[in-house]
């Protein structure tokens, strides 16, 4: 399997001086379904932002596709554009990533910025709208949609550039069962197509459904386990230590 990400002793400190991640060492391979499991505030989202090249390690090394991911490297617009095309990030709060006046423009934004002609971008957007079952929302403003609809638009907007790596931050959090089901099926389908999926959650039950490798982040912002989902779920003491269950 191709190595996509390599993190060596990576750490991230918030501007206020608090540590978010400490001594992170992982290798992520192409086609993996990786789940970051951990309690609130352990640094899952920060780690995902690190992998998406949105924040940069305060110390240590982060390499993606064989290239170092640093603030300096991201200054090169050609490099940054290619990286963004390869890695898509779906935020927990859909509102922060939906900024176009209509749902259709939102989905066309990525393909248009990567230089696709508008008719092809429109075709892509139409197909994605149909896939998500939200064609009727094409002309609506994204801010007036329900939570589940916003999430579908955010995912469609990311899928529109067809990235190789998809990073999802708490994708099913706070959604109705039907929207959750759609997201789970979409993630599994994308994984079957060979995409690398990296998700963060604190919901234990999602691990076996959505991942084939689980990394557990502890409250001290370090990895405390890296194993198959069924093995992780069987270690009650570990889950208790990671504040993922209330009692053993």
């Amino acid at each position: 399997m191709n190595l996509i990400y390599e993190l060596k002793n990576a750490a991230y400190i918030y501007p206020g001086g608090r540590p978010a991640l400490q001594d992170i060492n992982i290798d992520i391979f192409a086609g993996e379904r990786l789940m970051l499991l951990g309690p609130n505030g352990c640094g899952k989202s920060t780690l995902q932002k690190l992998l998406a090249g949105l924040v940069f390690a305060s110390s240590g090394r982060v390499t993606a596709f064989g290239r170092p991911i640093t603030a300096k490297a991201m200054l090169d617009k050609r490099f940054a554009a290619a990286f963004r095309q390869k890695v898509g990030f779906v935020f927990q709060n859909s509102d922060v990533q939906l900024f176009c006046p209509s749902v259709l423009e939102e989905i066309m934004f990525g393909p248009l910025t990567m230089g696709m002609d508008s008719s092809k971008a429109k075709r892509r957007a139409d197909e994605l709208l149909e896939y998500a079952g939200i064609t009727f929302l094409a002309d609506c403003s994204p801010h007036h949609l329900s939570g589940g609809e916003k999430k579908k638009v955010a995912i469609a907007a990311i899928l529109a550039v067809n990235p190789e790596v998809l990073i999802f931050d708490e994708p099913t959090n706070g959604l109705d069962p039907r929207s959750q089901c759609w997201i789970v099926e979409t993630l599994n389908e994308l994984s079957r197509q060979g995409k690398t999926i990296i998700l963060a959650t604190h919901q234990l039950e999602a691990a076996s459904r959505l991942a084939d490798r689980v990394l557990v982040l502890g409250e001290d912002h370090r990895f405390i386990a890296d194993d198959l989902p069924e093995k992780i779920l069987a270690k009650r003491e570990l889950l208790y230590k990671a504040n993922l269950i209330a009692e053993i």
Partner: protein
Amino acid sequence: MNRPLPEWLQENVTINLPAPKQCVRRFDYLEKTLQGIYKILAQDAHGNSTAGKRALLQQIEPHAKLIAALILLLAAAWTKKIEFLAAVNLLLLGLAAQAGLGVKSFMTRVWLPAFFFSGLAVLPGIISWVTPGESLYTIYSGVHLQLGWLTFPVVLDITKQGVQSALLVILRSASSLGLATLVLKTTRWSVITKVLAKFGLPAAVVAVLDLTYRYIYLFLLLFLEYIMGRRSRLAGREAQGEKLSWIGGTIADFLRITREYGEDIHYAMQSRGFTGEYHGQMKLKIGLCDIGFLIAAAIICCFA
């Protein structure tokens, strides 16, 4: 059951990631400013600010500290003695260093604006044309110059009186700015507002100041996430016009969000029994050390 994925999404197109080139960092004013504000607020929120350090000014009771600052401020505004103002500024510098603010950081915050803003404003006042008096340096003499209705003086000097009054203004603004900086950097904002409430600031204003500070932090975090959200989707070059329209759209969106938040916060306050009265006061706990501090400030003012 989901519909099948579009055909193009089933293809795994791998694009090459080029080696990054050395690029010069473009100055992003908006993001840099927001990051700077966030850093200050985050430090304050997590107790890492200078207000949390154990030093003289941080130990002084906030009421005593504010009263001392106020009387020193009045003395600095009232005095015409340059020596007094210079001594006050030296004292403030010493206190800043003791409080852990860092001499360099204090100088940048206080002396840079004092020189640039007050200095530029009073610069014309040092010449004999504006402030006549005893000459310190002659810029030119014996020149008869007339531009239309404007007649320039035959001799132009820098005068002692002009320099003195300019120095007075600069030192005065530096001491005022220094005092304000020291109070703000060594006392938590929430404590300052409570002390101000004790001094008679209306409760509604205190509530607004308290809530504003809290929600600026929240909205700032949200706005930085907006910037990140957009950046994560920029899979190519963007036109300047597009960026500007995004900023416009985001501002409009933020107005909507703040209005919604405002409503929800008000409902939340009402649900917890808020009837328009804001209890934002703190108890006065003045000790011997605080009284000593007040007396010292009063003695200093006697030399004004």
